[in-house]
């Protein structure tokens, strides 16, 4: 683990991407193959199955540290990370270990077959052989949630530097549902395996949010506009008589959406579609929470299939008759997509996202204003000449979301954040007036600057009325403008509504609490947009 710990320390102590890439590339040149595979796996969100409960880890760590469990629990919110809390409270190790990363992962996986006392003995033994950083990493491997501040793109670049394989090729090879047990480093990274290629998706091209006016994009004639739908971005792959559905998060979701299997009846093999999976009925999308019910389940009961049937709203055609089309202009790909979809019968689960015609930017802005009524989030703007790139790139694709809904609310509860925000109050509960009472209706975590979070943290410390565990009830004094993308009825919430993507848009220093919005205002919004 020493080499991996050194890599982690090098990555953790710099914010400069060039330094991170160099550290990672040098690791990929020198580490054993199995460690390299596991490192790639961990950096792309794959991790060993959990074999110990966090409850057990907490108890064993407190016992080993000679402190009562309640004191351990006091430390956890301060540190903001369980693996780190454990690493910090334990006494120094009495031995050292030269075993590589792969060994410790095997050790963790072997725990599954053991009974509780044997697991405990193995964990205590490991803690006593690992130094502070190694111990933190060991705990992270067990608890998950590994974040090394290394994007997939940065990892791919480092791996490319170390192996000489081109970045786009590597990005493609690393996709799919491989595990470090199912492949070798040679097989995954260095050589091309045609069988694995069958299910492999293309790296998604992601758009940036357009913050300026679209006039800055230049001549409207160079641009195409489409509705941006609020579903799950995915790729439908038809190859060799099979089909595969991938989410943007690189999760294979074929079995969750059995409706899409019917695509095989209408579309020839050697086709890859990029689009949005939507719950869809009667020519309109269902609210996102209908789709949400489908996401959580690996197999779908009949009732749910009938309630929330899904379709693929196709945006782009990436592969046709086995040929990779990504280098061709968008207009070209889109023309083929339209031809393909035009030939489909109505029962096929595939549609093409309809284009939005416009002559100038003003006309398009007027179209965008209609988005919420159509159940869309806004518009996608794509340059007609653009290739399909990999990852989030500025320039050719933009999402131009409709302006959010907003409401002014009073902050009533505050809670400290996690991880890098552990010493700041960042998680707030907001309320609106219902007569003389404040009714909580949403939480929000983001939207303020670091300086504002520091300022509100100081204020929270001095204006706490009551404490409930980590939550502080504060003086109802500050008003924030809460922005959100949608509003739905929710019997689970006291206020009767649930918001989609709430965040703090602005701290309204100019407004006293008495001028915040009311529950009646919120109900009006529900009636209009819910």
């Amino acid at each position: 683990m020493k080499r991996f710990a050194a890599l982690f320390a090098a990555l953790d102590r710099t914010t400069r991407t060039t330094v991170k890439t160099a550290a990672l590339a040098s690791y990929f040149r020198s580490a054993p193959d199995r460690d390299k595979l596991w490192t790639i796996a961990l950096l792309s969100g794959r991790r060993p199955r959990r074999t110990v409960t966090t409850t057990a880890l907490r108890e064993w760590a407190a016992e080993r540290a000679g402190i009562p469990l309640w004191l351990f629990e006091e430390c956890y919110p301060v540190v903001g990370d369980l693996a780190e809390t454990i690493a910090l409270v334990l006494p120094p190790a009495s031995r050292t270990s030269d075993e590589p990363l792969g060994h410790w992962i095997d050790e963790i996986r072997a725990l599954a077959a053991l009974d509780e006392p044997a697991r405990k003995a193995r964990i205590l033994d490991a803690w006593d052989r690992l130094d502070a950083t190694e111990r933190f990493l060991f705990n992270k491997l067990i608890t998950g949630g590994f974040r090394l501040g290394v994007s997939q793109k940065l990892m791919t670049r480092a791996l490319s530097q170390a192996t000489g394989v081109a970045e786009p090729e590597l990005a493609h090879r690393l996709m799919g549902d491989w595990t470090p047990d199912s492949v070798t480093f040679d097989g995954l990274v260095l050589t091309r395996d045609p069988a694995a290629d069958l299910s492999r998706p293309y790296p998604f091209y992601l758009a940036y949010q357009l913050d300026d006016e679209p006039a800055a994009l230049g001549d409207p004639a160079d641009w195409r506009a489409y509705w941006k739908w609020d579903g799950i971005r995915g790729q439908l792959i038809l190859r060799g008589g099979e089909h595969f559905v991938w989410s943007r998060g690189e999760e294979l979701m074929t079995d969750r959406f059995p409706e899409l299997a019917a695509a095989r009846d209408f579309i020839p093999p050697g086709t890859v579609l990029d689009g949005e999976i939507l719950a869809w009925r009667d020519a309109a999308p269902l609210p996102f929470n209908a789709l949400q019910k489908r996401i959580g389940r690996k197999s779908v009961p009949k009732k749910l299939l009938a309630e929330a049937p899904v379709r693929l709203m196709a945006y782009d055609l990436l592969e046709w008759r086995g040929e990779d089309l990504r280098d061709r202009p968008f207009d070209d790909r889109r023309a083929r997509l339209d031809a393909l979809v035009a030939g489909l019968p109505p029962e096929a689960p595939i549609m093409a996202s309809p284009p939005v015609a416009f002559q100038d930017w003003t006309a398009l802005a007027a179209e965008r204003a209609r988005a919420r009524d159509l159940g869309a989030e806004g518009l996608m703007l794509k340059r007609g000449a653009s290739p399909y790139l990999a990852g989030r790139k500025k320039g050719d694709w933009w999402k131009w979301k409709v302006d959010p809904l907003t409401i002014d609310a009073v902050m009533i509860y505050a809670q400290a954040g996690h991880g890098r925000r552990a010493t700041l109050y960042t998680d707030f509960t907001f309320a609106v007036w219902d007569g003389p009472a404040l009714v909580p209706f949403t939480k929000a975590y983001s939207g303020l600057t670091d300086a504002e979070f520091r300022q509100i943290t100081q204020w929270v410390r001095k204006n706490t009325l009551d404490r409930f565990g980590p939550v502080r009830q504060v003086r109802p004094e500050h008003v924030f403008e809460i922005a959100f993308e949608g509003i739905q009825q929710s019997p689970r919430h006291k206020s009767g509504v649930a918001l989609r993507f709430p965040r703090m848009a602005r701290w309204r220093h100019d407004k006293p609490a008495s001028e915040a919005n009311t529950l009646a205002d919120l109900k009006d919004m529900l009636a209009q947009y819910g």
Partner: protein
Amino acid sequence: MVLSVTDQGIYCAAGDFHIDPWRPVDRALITHGHADHARPGHRAYLATHAAAPVIRHRLGDVRIETIGYGEPRRIGDATVSFHPAGHVPGSAQIRVEVAGQVWVASGDYKTAPDGLSEPFEPVPCHGFITECTFGLPVFSWAPQAQVMADIDAWWAANAAEGRASVLGAYALGKAQRILANVDAAIGPILTHGAIEATNAVLRAQGLALPDTIQVTPETDPRDHPGALVLATPSALGTPWMRRFGPASTAFASGWMQLRGVRRRRAADRGFVLSDHADWDGLNTAIRATGAETVLVTHGYTAPFRRWLAEQGYDAHVLSTEYEGESLDTPDPTEEAAA
């Protein structure tokens, strides 16, 4: 009770004086010169010989009487004496004896020697007022020599790559502790104005510090290649730093023990270095006093009190307005001097 808390601060009724009061009083006994302990506006101050010059420097023309460590003084019906707290040069714990009852107000303290401050001395007492800035078992400091070796290695590596090393540290105590313990042979040492002002005060009272060069608007970093630049925490990330170009930045604080805080500071490195006691230091110090009653102030007071109570102490929380090792509020006196 020998000591209690009023709206003004920690108070001794028998001697009619306050210790580190946060509102103006007639007679103030001051443990050390940090802004949350030595405040302006009192009629009369009493501090150690070694702490007084900094207090004068920060508060201007105030009436300060000084006293040596261990020297008893009668005030009303109380006998007081000052004892080294090991926190910063001149810092003291204040012992107060009234009718055979002994109480000690420790101010801020750390138990490990730092090569600059007068080393901490345990003072036997019945009641002990302790800070607990780092009063949780996740805080445990590595030996100072190891931290200084890490700082030297970071500085030397930057110097070899032709980059300046900008290190954020508090103007009183931390900055001089670093100065006194790094390997000054690695390169020149530049200082922020607020730090240099404190250096001058401490040098004048006989503390040995390596040579430093104050950064002024005319300073050209190219004249000082491979420099270590000591900055106040509030100067990190401001235009003041821009003159050093693509420098490597670091911050020295006990809070750097936590990865989340380290990452939030967005400095390249975080060195775990505190002028406060760690968890073991607090527990050892409290045990060494033999006190039965322990009052805990600034820091993780609620859990630390409960822990002490479970260890058999008569433990209580004392609400004060001291701030501990703050990360987010810049010291106003540093701002003014900058």
